[in-house]
């Protein structure tokens, strides 16, 4: 049970532990306070649809700001440089705006309680069951991976044994979600967002100061093995894996920007659930749009520190030059924290990392318990009980989900490659989902049979491309294989859905009101102009336009 010695061990002192402990007191306190607002299942699973847009907007991006995002994107920054910003500016913001402007009216307006439930109303039971079960399974696996990553970091940084940190983290997340449900998860995500910024912004500024300002960073990176092109975002050949510039740009825009990111951001219930919890249609539409503003600036406190670490930390610079050493790119952020931050701010940085990893897991569990209770148990297993029963079911589903996540964390510890593959595979699954949703929302002729056949064949295509690329039949480095896999899955789903629709009978139009664009009256898919929604800064489409303009400017400045 001796703690693992490590080059990354941070010498945390009493004051750092005080800062970490304070955060956890607040996290549990929020769980306790949020409990008072829970009186029925809608309160528990969707916060009673009562939250303001800035809260759900920040939660929207925080739910995604987990271990993979923070550690992974700073690692990519260290390895590929500025091209990593595409994961934010191309791979997230446009899809978030599309969700808010185009898709949210159907999600929120139809009053469904989950994304699978939309599937049920539009396409019927087979598509619903496929979607609900695959989503629930994916969330449990990803929660386990998040838990394991968290425990590894605690083990490396502070020297706690892995199993102690797994159980401690699981217990904390479990207690605040079973108490306060989605509200507790969302409020903690908002708190977490500010703690992460408070931790990473000083790190970035101190790093920039030490490296000699922005010009100093440009000079140092240009002189490093990465070379000057790592300070520009386009054409990003190293990231996409295409050596041809034009192909690389096309790959990034269509692969990352279209099929991968639209699939993820617009159909993933973990994200959409945050918007469904907001108080009215206007707030629901603004949720992802408001989220897009902080989202576009997150690379500055995640990617830039990675780039700085690669030129400032001697061990990492050596690794980048020679490809060997005691550290690798994944350690970029930790190494920079070790080298720059004094005790005090060090504790805050560790708190920020822990907060981020726990919130990722909490987001997985809070969407898992909703789908499990509303979509699987209420719909297929134990029907027609009083609401109280499903509220209790939700609490128990959270407990069961946490226990399973501890189990998947144990699997992850033994088969880390397997887990990487699974995560990659899930990223493929979203592409056919997006094809089915977008067709279903805009083409009333699409039939229920087409819904599930398209989904199954698209997913099968994704798996086929995945297997082929793992066996080396398709040889694409970098992100190329995921771009191709998701793209193929999208196209196959789209074509098969069209063909099957033409051959089968459509649903009667009366059942599709509120679910399909052409059959939904305009009033039902736009917000009612309430007095409290006055002001240009509360208009979703205008806000989305401002966000898009900023993204274009950022791309031009950092081209």
């Amino acid at each position: 049970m001796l703690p693992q010695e490590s080059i990354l061990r941070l010498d945390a002192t009493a004051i750092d532990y005080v800062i970490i402990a304070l955060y956890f007191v607040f996290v549990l306190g929020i769980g306790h306070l949020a409990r008072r607002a829970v009186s029925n299942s809608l309160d528990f699973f969707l916060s009673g649809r009562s939250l303001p847009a800035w809260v759900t907007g920040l939660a929207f991006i925080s739910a995604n700001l987990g271990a993979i995002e923070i550690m992974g994107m700073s690692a990519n920054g260290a390895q590929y440089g500025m091209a990593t910003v595409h994961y934010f500016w191309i791979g997230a913001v446009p899809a978030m705006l599309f969700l808010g402007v185009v898709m949210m009216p159907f999600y929120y307006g139809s009053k469904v309680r989950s994304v699978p439930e939309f599937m049920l109303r539009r396409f019927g039971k087979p598509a619903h069951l496929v979607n609900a079960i695959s989503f629930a399974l994916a969330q449990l696996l990803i929660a386990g991976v998040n838990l394991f990553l968290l425990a590894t970091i605690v083990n490396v940084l502070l020297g706690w044994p892995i199993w102690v940190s797994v159980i401690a983290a699981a217990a904390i997340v479990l207690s605040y979600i079973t108490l306060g449900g989605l509200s507790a998860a969302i409020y903690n995500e908002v708190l977490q967002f500010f703690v992460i910024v408070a931790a990473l912004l000083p790190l970035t500024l101190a790093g920039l100061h030490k490296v000699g300002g922005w010009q100093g960073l440009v000079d140092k990176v240009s002189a490093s093995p990465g070379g000057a092109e790592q300070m520009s975002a386009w054409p990003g050949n190293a990231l996409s894996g295409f050596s041809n510039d034009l192909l690389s740009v096309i790959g990034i825009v269509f692969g990352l920007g279209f099929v991968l990111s639209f699939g993820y951001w617009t159909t993933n219930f973990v994200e959409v659930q945050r918007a469904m919890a907001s108080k009215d249609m206007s707030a629901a539409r603004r949720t992802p749009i408001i989220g897009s503003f902080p989202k576009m600036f997150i690379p500055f406190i995640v990617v830039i520190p990675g780039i700085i670490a690669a030129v400032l930390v001697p061990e990492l610079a050596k690794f980048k030059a020679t490809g060997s050493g005691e550290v690798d790119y994944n350690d970029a952020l930790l190494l920079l924290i070790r080298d720059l931050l004094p005790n005090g701010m060090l504790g805050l940085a560790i708190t920020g990392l822990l907060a981020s990893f726990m919130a990722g897991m909490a987001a997985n569990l809070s969407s898992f318990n909703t789908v499990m209770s509303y979509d699987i148990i209420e719909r297929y297993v134990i029907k027609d009980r009083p609401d109280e029963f499903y509220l209790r079911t939700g609490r128990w589903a959270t407990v069961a989900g946490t226990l399973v996540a501890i189990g998947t964390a144990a699997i992850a510890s033994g088969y880390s490659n397997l887990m990487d593959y699974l995560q990659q595979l899930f990223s493929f699954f979203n592409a056919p989902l997006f094809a089915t949703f977008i067709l279903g929302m805009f083409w009333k002729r699409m039939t229920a049979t087409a819904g599930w056949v398209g989904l199954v064949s698209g997913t099968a295509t994704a798996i086929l491309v995945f297997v082929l690329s793992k066996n080396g039949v398709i040889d694409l480095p970098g992100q190329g294989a995921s771009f191709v896999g998701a793209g193929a899955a999208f196209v196959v789903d789209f074509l098969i859905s069209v063909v099957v629709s033409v051959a089968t009978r459509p649903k009667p139009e009366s059942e599709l009101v509120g679910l399909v664009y052409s059959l939904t009256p305009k009033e039902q898919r736009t917000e009612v102009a309430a007095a409290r929604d006055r002001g240009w800064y509360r208009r979703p489409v205008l806000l989305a336009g401002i966000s898009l303009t900023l993204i274009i400017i950022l791309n031009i400045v950092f081209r």
Partner: protein
Amino acid sequence: MAEKKKAGAFDIRIVIAALIGIYGVLLTVLGIVEKQTEIDKAAGLNINLWGGVTMLVFAVLFLLWARWRPIVPVEKPGQE
């Protein structure tokens, strides 16, 4: 118009301001008593002091926002 009724004590802005404010106080004090060797780690920048002061300012701004626009319970039209 009659005075607006304030919602219960739970406003997330106050919770955020409280936590960041406490951090701000702790870090500012640490920054004031900082040893020179720690400051030299970041090329002469006193991170704790600057970070702490910024967090205090942030906490005050959040409190002002919560005071300026308190949460008002909204009567919702019956759902479903």
